[in-house]
């Protein structure tokens, strides 16, 4: 009996063992299958990854080539292009009238920018400004501050070329030195008429033209807790005199000229904004010009001379899109105090004075304007400007873009215009300017300014009224 029982248990054990073996074999086979599937998937993934890596490498090579090309383009150019049609009519004090219409001109500006390093950049502007059908070099082109600023020949003049060197970055008082031919033209509030952003540092009522110099800009925004606040101290050469006969002049390093000194200009300028009001600019300035050269182009030192000095004060405010009303506003005030030294140039007289007159000549000028945008996306803009300068008003706008130097007027000037914005980069403007001169020699440093009367005839004949209807196209890209 024991034998049978043992046999039974033994048989059951063997059978159970065989069942387990079969189950294990099945599981292993399944696992092998799964492993094979996974292997295949991994292989596929590897192939895909390799392909992706190859593609990434190709893209990387491509982006590197783009980056290399971008880095190779050390100077970036942008375009400014103006076409003007002016129609002038002048009325002289003696009543005679002269028409000068259908005057076409072009101004080409090639603006340059280079990011030299994180702390240094370069800006430049090459300009050609000429009348249609004429390449005669305008005599004023020889004045340093008017190069590229007055219509002349088809040559390109260097209107701007300067380095900005930033230091103290990230500190409480970041600073920058601007060295070279400065952004001293087309300043505020001329940008409204051109429909561009601010294109110059200084108030256009006081300064407009090319100028070589050095400017220290200190960002005082954190100091006075007001954004976009800058304090600038600048030095510039107004007129560097060169005596052609000896081919030397004190504009040249190491040379000196005891008879005629260079005109040096120093100035201090504060830029700030109205707190919590978007897109505003407030600028307050003072500058001093010493040893003003009577005529920088006169190479006869026995005839040429220094005629005195000038103090120029300015205060301006402007608001773009004031209170989101699409209305732009500006108001500027200038004060000039000339100090003639009694020297005279030829028969013209001294600094804003008659020969031997050394009394100070104080004057002021006011410039106000507005522009309103209307229509879809403010494609149309209407603008109005008015400026009034008193007797003896003098500024440094001899290089202004408008050929009549409107802001130097000793009298009153009105300008109104209608602008159509073609696209983000271009516009066309139809305008009318009317200038009534009250005193003579607007914009001239030399000679006494006199009240214009109808008795000013013959060689004394002066323009009493100037009007222009103009059409201008402005492209900046």
């Amino acid at each position: 009996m024991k034998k049978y029982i043992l046999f039974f248990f033994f048989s059951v054990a063997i059978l159970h063992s065989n069942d387990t073996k079969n189950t294990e074999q099945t599981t292993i086979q399944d696992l092998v299958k799964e492993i094979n599937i996974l292997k295949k998937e991994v292989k596929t993934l590897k192939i895909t990854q390799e392909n992706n890596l190859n593609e990434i490498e190709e893209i990387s090579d491509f982006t590197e080539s783009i980056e290399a090309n971008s880095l190779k383009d050390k100077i970036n150019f942008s375009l400014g292009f103006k076409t003007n049609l002016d129609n002038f009519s002048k009325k002289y004090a003696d009543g005679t009238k002269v028409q000068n219409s259908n005057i076409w001109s072009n101004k080409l500006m090639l603006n340059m920018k280079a990011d030299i390093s994180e702390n240094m950049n370069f800006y430049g502007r090459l300009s050609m400004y000429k009348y249609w059908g004429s390449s005669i070099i305008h005599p004023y082109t020889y004045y340093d501050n008017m190069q590229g600023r007055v219509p002349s020949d088809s040559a390109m003049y260097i209107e701007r070329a300067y380095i900005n060197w930033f230091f103290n970055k990230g500190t409480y008082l970041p600073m920058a030195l601007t060295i070279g031919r400065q952004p001293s033209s087309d300043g505020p509030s001329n940008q409204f008429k051109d429909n561009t952003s601010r294109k110059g540092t200084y108030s256009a009522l006081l300064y407009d033209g090319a100028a070589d110099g050095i400017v220290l800009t200190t960002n005082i925004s954190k100091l006075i807790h007001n954004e976009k606040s800058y304090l600038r101290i600048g030095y510039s050469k107004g007129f560097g005199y060169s005596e052609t006969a000896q081919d030397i002049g004190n504009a040249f390093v190491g040379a000196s000229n005891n008879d005629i000194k260079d005109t040096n200009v120093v100035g201090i300028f504060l830029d700030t904004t109205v707190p919590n009001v978007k897109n505003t600019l407030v600028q307050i300035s003072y500058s001093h010009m010493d040893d003003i050269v009577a005529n920088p182009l006169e190479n006869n030192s026995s005839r040429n001379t220094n005629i005195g000095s000038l103090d120029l004060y300015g205060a301006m405010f402007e608001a773009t899109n004031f209170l989101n009303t699409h209305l732009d506003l500006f108001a500027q005030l200038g004060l000039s105090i000339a100090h003639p030294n009694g020297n005279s140039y030829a028969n013209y007289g001294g600094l804003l004075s008659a020969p031997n007159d050394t009394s100070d000549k104080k004057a002021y000028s006011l410039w106000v304007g507005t522009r309103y945008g209307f229509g879809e996306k403010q494609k149309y803009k209407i603008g109005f400007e008015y400026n009034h300068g008193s007797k003896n008003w003098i500024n440094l706008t001899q290089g202004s873009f408008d050929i009549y130097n409107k802001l130097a007027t000793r009298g009153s000037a009105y300008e109104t215009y209608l602008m159509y914005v073609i696209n983000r980069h271009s516009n066309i403007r139809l305008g009318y300017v009317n200038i009534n001169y009250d005193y003579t020699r607007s914009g001239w440093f030399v000679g006494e300014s006199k009240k214009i009367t109808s008795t000013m005839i013959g060689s004394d004949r002066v323009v009493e009224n100037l009007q222009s209807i103009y059409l201008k196209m402005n492209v900046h890209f």
Partner: protein
Amino acid sequence: MQEMKKIILLFIFIPFLNASDSNVIALAQSLNLSAGSKAIVQWERVFKSKKKMKRYKINTLSPIEKIELEEYLIEHAIDSDQPTIAGV
């Protein structure tokens, strides 16, 4: 006197009517958006694409914020018309 009062009131309310640039700058910074990182057309593309707006989290902004941000980014894009001022 009445005119004077109006002028004073206008200046008191200006800050509430017209926010300064710093608000939109802060908004751009909070979204890690640098205006100078893209050209005008590229920013325009961002604001035309729902997918891209979502990517930059612009879709979470209010319509006014979106408009202000778009204006700011386009105005300060790398190829935009930048002011030319000494030392800035």
